[in-house]
């Protein structure tokens, strides 16, 4: 596999063929243009020549794959990342029964030194591992708010495989764990120069920002040299869980105190709604109990009768005759016989 690669790099003719394959319009017109431009490579700085042999030194390869049980959004995100990063390699889904240390072996087999591994749990939560394969550090993130390239609201476009600019928030330099993450992200996301599948121009920029203790990822297309930008996508938010010293294991270097597992989050939401109901029930129970209690009888206060003066006794009158019935004025209105 490595031998054939070397051969590919050495042969200019096959290089040119590759260039042709890369073109969207495989028309002869485009070919002629390219040939013409290749000829006058020195004069104009429009199109650089084909990737020169031997210049590709930065041999970074990233393995991007996932576990089983991912949903469509995650799958599209993975495919988008593979497309944007020409130095990536794909692999089949890994069974979750296997231990994570198996991934290191897979990386070695594929000759990759970095890895992005997507792990889906409960068909709801997506975790992402970023790791430097043989010995280096690794980090586990919870991924949220995924928007893929295919969304119609993200209107930008870029060359497939062009090298990105990486833009980081100044907050990345403030803490040691963020500094380590920054280095890891740079090494993973930057496309090596003169990579055979890369395209020459700078037309997009990846943005990593720290906000609300999370890392926000955005991808912008550079339209004009005066920094007019349009978003290409994908976009996602990474919530750091832990940083390990080894690849997919090893002692924990850093644990995020602000991280709350999604299970815990859902549990809390449920308990909040349950608590509301419980509170109401409790209040009702207390009220019931209070009603059943005997009323408190206050002791008789002797000083209350001090100013009580009994009224004069009235003569008792007994009525022997039935009093006359009172005339009810309203009854007049209630006519018994109604006129037909």
């Amino acid at each position, binding site marked *: 596999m490595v031998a054939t690669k070397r051969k590919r790099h050495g042969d200019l003719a096959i290089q040119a063929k590759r260039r042709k394959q890369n073109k969207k319009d495989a028309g002869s017109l485009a070919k002629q243009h390219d040939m013409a431009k290749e000829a006058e490579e020195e004069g104009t700085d429009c199109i650089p020549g084909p990737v020169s042999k031997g210049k590709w030194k930065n041999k970074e390869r990233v393995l991007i794959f996932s576990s089983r049980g991912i949903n469509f959004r995650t799958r599209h995100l993975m495919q988008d990342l593979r497309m944007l990063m020409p130095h990536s390699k794909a692999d089949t889904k890994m069974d979750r029964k296997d231990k994570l240390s198996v991934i290191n072996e897979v990386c070695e087999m594929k000759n990759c030194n970095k890895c992005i591994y997507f792990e889906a749990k409960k068909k709801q939560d997506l975790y992402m591992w970023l790791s430097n394969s043989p010995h280096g550090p690794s980090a586990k993130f919870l991924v949220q708010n995924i928007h893929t390239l295919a969304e119609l609201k993200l209107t930008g476009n870029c060359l497939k495989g062009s090298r990105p600019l990486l*833009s980081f928030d100044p907050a990345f330099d403030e803490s*040691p764990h963020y500094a380590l993450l920054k280095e890891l992200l740079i090494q993973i996301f*930057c496309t090596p120069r003169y990579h055979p599948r890369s395209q020459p121009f*700078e037309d997009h920029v990846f943005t990593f920002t720290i*906000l609300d203790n999370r890392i926000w990822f955005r991808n912008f297309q550079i339209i004009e*040299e005066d920094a007019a*930008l349009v978003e290409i996508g994908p976009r996602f938010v990474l919530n750091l869980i832990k940083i390990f010293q080894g690849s997919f294991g090893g002692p924990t270097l850093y644990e995020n105190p602000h991280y709350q597992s999604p299970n815990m989050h859902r549990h809390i939401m449920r308990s909040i709604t349950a608590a509301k109901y419980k509170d109401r029930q409790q209040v009702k129970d207390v009220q019931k109990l209070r009603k059943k209690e005997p009323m408190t009888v206050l002791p008789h206060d002797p000083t209350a009768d001090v100013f009580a003066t009994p009224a004069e006794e009235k003569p008792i009158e007994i009525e022997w005759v039935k009093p006359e019935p009172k005339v009810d004025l309203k009854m007049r209105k209630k006519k018994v016989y109604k006129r037909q």
Partner: protein
Amino acid sequence: MDTPPASGSDSDSDDSLVTDRELQEAFSRGLLKPGLNVVLEGPKKAANDVTGLKQCLAEFKRDLDWVERLDVTLGPVPEASGSQSTPQDKDQRAVDPEDDFQREMSFYRQAQAAVLAVLPRLHQLKVPTKRPTDYFAEMAKSDQQMQKIRQKLQTKQAAMEKSEKAKQLRALRKYGKKVQTEVLQKRQREKKHMMNAIKKYQKGFSDKLDFLEGDQKPVAQGMKDKAKGQQMKKGPSAKRRYKNQKFGFGGKKKGSKWNTRESYDDVSSFRAKTAHGKGPKKPGKKGLNKRPGKRAREKMKTRTR
């Protein structure tokens, strides 16, 4: 009885952090209180191994050229409005993650700052950055996808324009209705004036047929004209106005002639000189050459014969 607990406690002491001997020593010193002493865990502390992190970073770091990495760490471009850069202001302007627009704008500005910083550097290093218009290559999103996006944007714009048009139409209709009612009213007024003028002519109050020549001096024009403004102030003379009021066909006429005490006692229209025949008489045709009656004419005829 003593030995099993001792063995039990021995086995326990392997697991527990504090041995029996240590407990005894602590008790003798008076640190332990009587009762059941349980080892409590302190609050959970998140692991933060700063030295470990730094060491790991130092080992892991690769010294690549900047051209290889193309990374830049910059804050967002300051907003166009209000560019104070005191630390207090920066804290106050901390982005609220819940406010979507503000958040996305801060990301946008961060990207802009990065682009503005990096592009000149790349030009210095002679790295091509701008894609020429005739460079065709495979794009991240397919043509089909871009078509869909364009379609969606177009439909959105069309919908907006439609709603704008509908709003304008509604406003126009409202205005049109107003104008229409005004025009109708104007026409009715003109018709009324015309009918009044015709009736006046028919009844003999005015000889002129000026009204047929159209509105040469309509009220609106008169108002616009400043030269004739003074004339319009005076309007018809007092006599004319009186006559209009009495004999014209506009205004309140119903209760104008009542045989009441007031109208009987009203002697304002009595002119003594005219009543006694001494005022200036209006010479009529008949007055000048009064033709004699039939008998007088016959007498004259017989006399002359």
